[in-house]
């Protein structure tokens, strides 16, 4: 049973300056949500809080499986993942990078190989699997970040500005990857972008953020 994410009255500040105020929303299963809004509106912070990478100052985040609240432990964190705008790749091959999430979950051998190959094929990096990941272009690096996330088959996939640092060609490729993922209907996907037209192309449900609040959902 997939996870449902529910946030209520989330407040977060850095050095006394609020970045999120009273954010509440419920992310249902198997849809693509796009958080959009100007730079500095709190999109990335909200995503980091939802991915349990940092706690809010106030408010509640609950992950529900059916009607049960899931305990916020490593097991829950392993059911979701966040792809950052600057993908941190390890100084090793593309394959080993994509296999990282599976390796730390103790998934090895044939299963690991199949899942990694499938993810790399999906993002069009299969031909570069033995290449050092640090030699990839920024667009390819972003695609590797998505492949690495896909390999672990998360129930919720957070994508923070996935096309912010890539060229137009790679933006198109990444958008197609996301649309293909959407067609597969396996995960709930939450994307942040400041590009309204991209938000319309990719999302089932659009959330607009302004001045630290979700103003339209």
């Amino acid at each position: 049973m997939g996870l449902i994410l529910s946030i209520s009255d989330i407040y977060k500040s850095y050095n006394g300056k609020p970045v999120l105020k009273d954010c509440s929303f419920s992310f249902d299963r198997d849809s693509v949500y796009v958080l959009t809004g100007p730079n500095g509106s709190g999109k990335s912070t909200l995503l980091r809080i939802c991915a349990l990478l940092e706690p809010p100052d106030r408010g509640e985040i609950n992950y529900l499986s059916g009607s049960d609240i899931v305990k916020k432990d490593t097991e829950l964190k392993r059911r979701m993942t966040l792809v950052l705008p600057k993908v941190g790749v390890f100084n090793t091959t593309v394959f080993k990078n994509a296999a990282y999430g599976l390796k730390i979950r103790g998934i090895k051998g044939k299963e690991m190989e199949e899942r990694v190959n499938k993810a790399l094929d999906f993002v069009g990096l299969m031909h570069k699997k033995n290449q050092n990941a640090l030699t990839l272009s920024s667009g390819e690096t972003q695609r590797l970040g998505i492949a690495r996330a896909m390999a672990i088959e998360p129930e919720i996939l957070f994508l923070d500005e996935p096309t912010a640092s890539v060229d137009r060609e790679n933006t198109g490729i990444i958008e197609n990857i996301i649309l293909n993922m959407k067609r597969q209907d396996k995960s709930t996907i939450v994307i942040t972008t400041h590009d309204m037209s991209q938000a319309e192309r990719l999302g089932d449900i659009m959330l607009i953020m302004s001045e630290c609040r979700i103003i339209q959902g």
Partner: protein
Amino acid sequence: MDSIIEGFRKAFILIFNLDAELLGIIFLSLKVSGSALLVSAVIGIPLSAILGSKKFPAKGFIISLMNTFMGLPPVVVGLFVYIMLSRSGPLGFMGLLYTPSAMVIAQTILAFPIVVSLCHSAIVGVDPIIKQASMTLGATPFQTTITIIKEARYGIMSGVIAAFGRVMAEVGAILIVGGNIAGYTRVMTTTIALETDKGNFELALALGIILLTISLLINAVLHFIQKKGMVKE
């Protein structure tokens, strides 16, 4: 000039004949320095990882202490270990003075700060995005630390090799705590010092050549490791 050439000639004869005394000295040198390095690395690398990833009150003090101790004069270390291990010292009951173990202790004290400081620099030099990437993929704090150590592996290896170079070339500390006893605590550097004093240049030169060769090999390995760590864009 003739005596120098003669010294070199005899030195090469000793090396090519695989002289038993010479081999014994080389083996002991590698054993003592290798043991000191192993102890330093086993304790020093995890410590440098903790210093690089955790926040705690004495952290800055430990880093400053390690950086300062990188330049410890070997004779001062020798003197300190001698006082600790001498019969009237606090650890005198262990009976370690003038043994290879005492030499390992002294060299560990010399190697440890180098391992910690250089490995710490390598670990803090890892892009913070790596830690975040590891966490977002569901790694536990321990798995994240191991990932960061792996990312810093070339810098860590450089630090360990630099420490090995330092202890292999060191003479002051092991001379004081080892006593330079023939066949027991006599290593390459102490033999060079003794034989030079005695005017027996051939053995001193043979060991000097071997020590230089080892240094050259260490630097070649270091260069290779650093080159391997650099990824062509």
